[in-house]
């Protein structure tokens, strides 16, 4: 049994690393939410369902088409992102002029529909998805056994997050995007196709969720409800980070994963609640979130 003060430093390292791995999922998901929120001003409640779709499309690729994990890693975000584009074009666009709350309600309804349909088709107990053969096994790091796949997840998500940050903050496309966020009408007047930009942004945010889904498929249970509970935690992450900056979402995602991981060692019963407690504390001190701009 682990004792509170008797934890050897090695075990602690192990837990820190695991926390970072969980944090990578939080980071990718909250990044997608932040990108969508930034431009569309919509809290995408469908995000959890789209994360789930990502995992399912990967499963379908393998079982119906024989497409392996690596191809699915590219294909699934594209497919799910495309459905996101359809959703934006035909549904979200129609309510863009309304109060943001309607966006929340609409995406909530969509999440119910998507999860219900998948449940009808595939049941709820989940589907098997194996770790790709190239990544089975693990490394003995001395202080812990690190499965290769987990290592891959951390590296992949860091790369994805930093690439997204780079595109948005440092490239011309990102500049358009930021401009459209600040002032869509003016940006449109400069001859930039803002509606297209909005559609593509939503598609991209959704694709990020799907990518997280594919990354999760081999290690978490692939079932229609896999995103439903996770999304609430990600919302809390977003509230803590504040929706001001892309980097904020990334940093908050990783650090909350870390904190949650450490809680699992010291006081496992609280691991599910700790993020919400932090959220309340942050709100008391900084209502706009850690990285958010004051309203």
């Amino acid at each position, binding site marked *: *049994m*682990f004792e509170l003060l008797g934890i050897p430093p090695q*075990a602690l390292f*192990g*837990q820190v690393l*695991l*926390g970072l*791995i*969980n944090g990578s999922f939080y980071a990718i998901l909250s990044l997608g939410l932040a990108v969508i929120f930034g431009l569309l001003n919509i809290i995408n409640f469908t995000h959890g369902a789209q994360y789930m779709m990502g995992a399912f499309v990967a499963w379908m690729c393998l079982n119906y088409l024989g497409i392996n994990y690596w191809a699915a890693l590219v294909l699934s975000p594209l497919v799910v992102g495309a459905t996101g584009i359809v959703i934006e074009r035909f549904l979200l666009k129609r309510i863009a002029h309304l109060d943001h709350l309607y966006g929340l309600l609409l995406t909530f309804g969509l999440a119910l529909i998507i999860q*219900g349909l998948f*449940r*009808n088709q595939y*049941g*709820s*107990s*989940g*589907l*098997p998805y*194996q*770790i790709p053969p190239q990544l089975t*096994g*693990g490394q003995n790091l001395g202080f*812990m*056994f690190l*499965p290769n*796949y*987990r290592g891959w997840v951390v590296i992949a998500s860091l790369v994805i997050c930093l690439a997204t940050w780079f595109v948005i903050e440092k490239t011309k496309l990102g500049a358009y995007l930021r401009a459209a966020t600040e002032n869509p009408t003016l940006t449109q007047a400069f001859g930039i196709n803002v509606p297209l930009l909005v559609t593509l942004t939503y598609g991209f945010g959704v694709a990020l969720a799907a990518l997280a889904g594919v990354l999760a498929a*081999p*290690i*978490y*249970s692939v*079932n229609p*409800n*896999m995103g439903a*509970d*996770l999304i609430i935690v990600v919302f809390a992450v977003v509230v803590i980070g504040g929706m001001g900056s892309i980097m904020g979402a990334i940093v908050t995602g990783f650090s909350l994963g870390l904190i949650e*991981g450490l809680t*699992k*060692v010291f006081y*496992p*019963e609280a*691991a*599910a*609640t700790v993020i919400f407690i932090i959220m309340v504390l942050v709100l008391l001190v900084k209502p706009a979130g850690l990285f958010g701009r004051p309203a």
Partner: protein
Amino acid sequence: MKLKSLLLGGAFAALMSGTALAQVSVKVGVLNDRSGLYADLSGEGSVIAARMAVEDFKAADKGIKVEIVSADHQNKPDVGSTIARQWYDQDGVDLILDVPTSSVALAVNQITREKNKLFINSGAAASDLTGAACSPNTIHWTYDTYALAQGTGGAMVKAGGDSWFFLTADYAFGHALERDTAAIVTKNGGKVVGAVKTPFPGTDFSSFLLQAQASKAKVIGLANAGGDTINSIKQAGEFGIVAGGQKLAGLLVFITDVNALGLQTAQGLVLTESFYWDTNDQTRTWSDRFAKLNNGKKPSMVQAGVYSGLLHYLKAVEATKGKDSATVMAKMKEMPTDDPLFGKGSVRVDGRKMHDMYLFEVKKPSESKGPWDFYKQIAVLPAEQAFKPLSESNCPLVKK
């Protein structure tokens, strides 16, 4: 509404003239999870099993008219109790079957008693149904936590797995499972070296698995269910826990879970069930028929229990030529049970259905001959050992 009252009227009239014409109409409600976590192991499959029971019993030839209705309780006690109330009050349902999820089962158990109808539970694990919450109107058919703990806990220790570490889902059900199993492990001379409570529902168990690995326990007991179990087994494979020589013991794992995991991941897992389709010729024939009706999916023990329970009920209705709850229940407890799936058995005074339980190990992919060929049998637990003896019972129906 009109149709309902018409049917109800018909049933009532039939009941009145029951003895004269030897014609009895019974209405059976299959109440289970049709959309959530347990939809695969109960759900529509249980309704199919119930229909097969009516068919095999040749109810119509024997002057018994059986109508089957079904509903989804969504694993929520409030939804389940609303449906049960309405079925009993309004729709003239005589018997409720299945009801997985302990919380819903306990609610239905109480309403059935209040309305003096009958309840044959197949899906739920709570051993309280025949313990503190036992009722003269309820039979608990297929399995319970005590039997699971007895099977997996007892047999693992005997097989040399004498030190345990528990991964316990942090809610009442998980705690009960850990407590029951730990007691049996210690009783058989094993010891519990540690336990960790995991947030429920959880997705990431790696941190806890790491603690389990570090404990050097020979067996890691998974005191959880559904998605938690699947996630923890999946991740145990990833961290090479089974490959490292530790055994995983699933305290509540169904064949549908193994199907969801795939053999590659689930291999080596030890678990207890009361029914496996590939046990003998009778179970195989029946399961083939069932699979044809259920998209090729083999029956779970819960679905098999629904079949077996309804069959026994119909026999009692036939024998008593009526459907008075008390009379039928007395008959069901008096008659020995006998059906192709569970063999011979009996129903105890506290409502516990007695049959053998089996300890299985999940096959390696190389050993499996095809889909659903998942288990090899390690041990058989005779009913008297598997279920809690009456002498230890805290059920008020048991006279001491």
